[in-house]
């Protein structure tokens, strides 16, 4: 009997999602443990994020000579989204290897360990989000009820995207142990290449593709656009849809080829 049946892959994903008790608890506990010994608890995250955004926003706003009422909301929303995506990727690379104690002891869907990392990072994201609310209120970015609805939908899209690519990264990270530092340095470059500190309009027209072709830019747009009072473009939605589709196919393919071997890699 061949062990790499495709239906076992889908079974893993479906059972993983339905074991919500496990991944919510583990994800929540990861955050709890990290901040157990500090008085402010997870609000340290909020505080350090706020410090960074408020100081960088001022400096770069002056450097680029952009009106702070435009620049502050732009950099704040961009930074929060970027931080979510980059720490998530960093954590996901180790998602399975860190869970080796569980994996070798009890048979559970691998999906659980991906969702656990997603949960803890999303909790951090929500804390970071608190840091930018004063900016959004103070500069009155023109958020409407419709845009809030769009934002919630976009968060869902972002999470789906993160799940697919996260699974891919965690499989690669488990199989190839030197991938973590590689990802770390690649992410640093991506941060500078992605319009977070700078705006795509600053590019000469003919170099515009440098921004729009960048997947990180499109992911950041999902969250940033509704928060600074604009609808994300159709291009963004098209790009993201293709990204999710591609990621889903690659994820399924990799799982189909490797799922039965994951336990041997640990």
């Amino acid at each position, binding site marked *: *009997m061949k*062990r790499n049946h495709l239906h076992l892959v889908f079974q893993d994903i479906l059972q993983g999602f339905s*074991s919500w*008790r*496990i991944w919510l*608890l*583990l994800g929540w*506990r990861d955050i709890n*443990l990290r901040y*157990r010994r500090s008085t402010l608890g997870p609000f340290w995250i909020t505080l350090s994020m706020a410090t960074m955004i408020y100081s960088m926003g001022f400096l770069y706003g002056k450097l680029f000579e952009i009106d702070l009422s435009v620049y502050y909301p732009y950099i704040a929303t961009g930074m929060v989204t970027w931080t979510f995506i980059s720490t998530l990727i960093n954590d996901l690379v180790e998602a399975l290897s860190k869970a080796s*104690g*569980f*994996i*070798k*002891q*009890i*048979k*559970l869907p691998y999906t659980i360990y991906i969702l656990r990392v997603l949960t803890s990072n999303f909790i951090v994201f929500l804390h970071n989000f608190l840091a930018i609310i004063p900016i959004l209120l103070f500069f009155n970015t023109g958020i409407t009820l419709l845009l809030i609805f769009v934002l919630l939908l976009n968060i869902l899209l972002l999470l789906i995207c993160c799940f697919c690519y996260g699974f891919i990264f965690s499989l*690669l990270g488990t*199989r*190839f*142990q*030197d*991938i973590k530092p*590689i990802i770390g340095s690649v992410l640093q470059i991506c941060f500078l290449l992605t319009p977070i500190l700078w705006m795509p309009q600053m590019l000469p027209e003919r170099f515009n593709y440098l921004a729009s072709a960048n997947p990180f830019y499109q992911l950041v747009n999902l969250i940033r656009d509704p928060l600074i009072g604009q609808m994300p473009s159709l291009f963004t939605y098209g790009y993201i849809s293709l990204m999710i589709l591609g990621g889903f196919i690659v994820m399924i393919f990799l799982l189909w080829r490797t799922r*039965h*071997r994951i*336990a*041997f*890699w640990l």
Partner: protein
Amino acid sequence: MTIISLKNINLHFPIYGANTRSLKKRIIHVTTGGMIEYDRNEVITVHALKNINLDIQEGDRVGLIGANGAGKSTLLRVLAGIYEPTSGDLDIKGKVSALLDVMLGLDQDSSGYENMTIRGILHGLKFHEIAQKKEEIAKFTELEDYLAMPIRTYSTGMQLRLAFAIATAVNPEIFVLDEVVGTGDAHFMHKAKERIDRLISNSKAVILASHDNHTIEMMCNKVIVMHAGEILYFGETKEGLEFYQNREL
């Protein structure tokens, strides 16, 4: 009724050398058409289980014996669904609970109570079911106030007590265990044995790996003798133990 059926199960265990686990070296290897060789790049495979055929009936208590490296733990992991065999048919009717390495999966920074919750959830219990079990587990461990402290402050023996109590709190259908009660003081060993006896008598089938022939003789009605990934003998306990002892001589 046959509750576990294994037909021609083979397991090839890949052992990855450091080079095969490096993405950089992989890429260099591919882009240079394999001209730059960093040592040997192949993955070594160990044929850990060879053509295993096994039928275990409901009510069987099967002892698993064999020298170190005979494949006992690997077979238990296959039964628990942790390792998937390379080929062969595996048919298990019921939910398998494994007690392999009790210490694995304990979280050092969480307290004893929190570890109970985590384990309980992992085993598919609901929060209120765990709350019901906590008292019983706490009583068994005799750790009392320590249970509210992070378990990295425990001694190894205390951790073992907790791990064992948690892992054995749920009644399994099919119970797979690997020499769990190795260390511990005499008082705990006695209690642990009682508890295992109770679990064993409550479950539909038990597979127990042990080096202690006395334990096997007491608990099991059948015995599997393994050597180098193969089953040499499967049958009555008494004959099996004799067979094993004669082989050893």
